[in-house]
């Protein structure tokens, strides 16, 4: 419970950064923080006390493995989610660079004010 709440605090810091900051790179950083937090939350849900990694070693007992292995399903889905995060970060960075070339500023309120 405490671990979940501390993880949600990181998500909330990301949301605050996304809403309140005006610098475009600060907004991207807030987005990245939210992404990390959600990935970590999904892995935290699948953790077991005294758990072992879901990789079957040759000399390992199958019953013990099935009883103590951590949840493999969120791990598999988060694995692709992390890589998708890199793709969307590259897209956001490309937009930020284009906007800077056009308006010569990263300030969102300045960009909103200019036309054309």
């Amino acid at each position, binding site marked *: 419970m405490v671990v979940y709440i501390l993880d949600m605090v990181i998500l909330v810091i990301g949301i*605050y950064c996304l809403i309140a900051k005006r610098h475009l790179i600060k907004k991207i950083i807030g987005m990245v923080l939210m992404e990390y937090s959600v990935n970590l939350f999904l892995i935290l849900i699948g953790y077991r006390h005294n758990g072992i990694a879901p990789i079957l070693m040759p000399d390992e007992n199958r019953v013990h493995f099935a009883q103590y292995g951590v949840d493999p*399903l969120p791990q598999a889905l988060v694995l692709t989610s992390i890589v998708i995060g890199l793709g969307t970060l590259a897209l956001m960075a490309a937009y930020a660079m284009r906007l800077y070339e056009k308006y010569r500023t990263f300030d969102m*309120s300045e960009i909103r004010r200019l036309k054309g």
Partner: protein
Amino acid sequence: METFFIIMLVLMIIGAIIAVETKNMLSAVIAAGVVGFGVSVLFLFLKAPDIAITQVIVEVLSLIILIRVTTKADNEAIERKIDSFANIAGLVFVGIFVGFCIWAFVDMTPFGTPLMRVSQHYLSAGLEETGAANTVAAVILDYRAYDTLGEAVVIFTSILGAFVILRSRGKKKIYEEDYVKVGIPE
């Protein structure tokens, strides 16, 4: 073990606050890297080695991308006047969100005892059904292969979008060079 998780999470929260509140953009990007590598270490201790390796690689690449964007421009802060409406709206939303989170976490199973109705079958019968010793690889490439295909499409689309956005100047340059080569006056 849970104490170690709490210590790491507090360290990551401090890094996140520094990343949000610092004035210099380069140090903000590096402080966000603290959070990323902290997440990677936590993945390792949460018994997820595949994700820990992927997270380290992705973190290094995203630091490179963000530093490329920052050093291109002025990395001075632009918070001259404080936008009080956005600050208040953000803080109110944060409060409501934390309240709902605590309300939802009360009904969840406590930390360390996951609800594994589907995954228990993957753990106990994964080796016979797929032949893969790594259960995560079995889920990605066998049980949920269509999800992986869809996620590959998303990655391809985002990389294509970034490529198209960054490309337009190169196209114009080729056009001008062609003019010079053919000898058409401007």
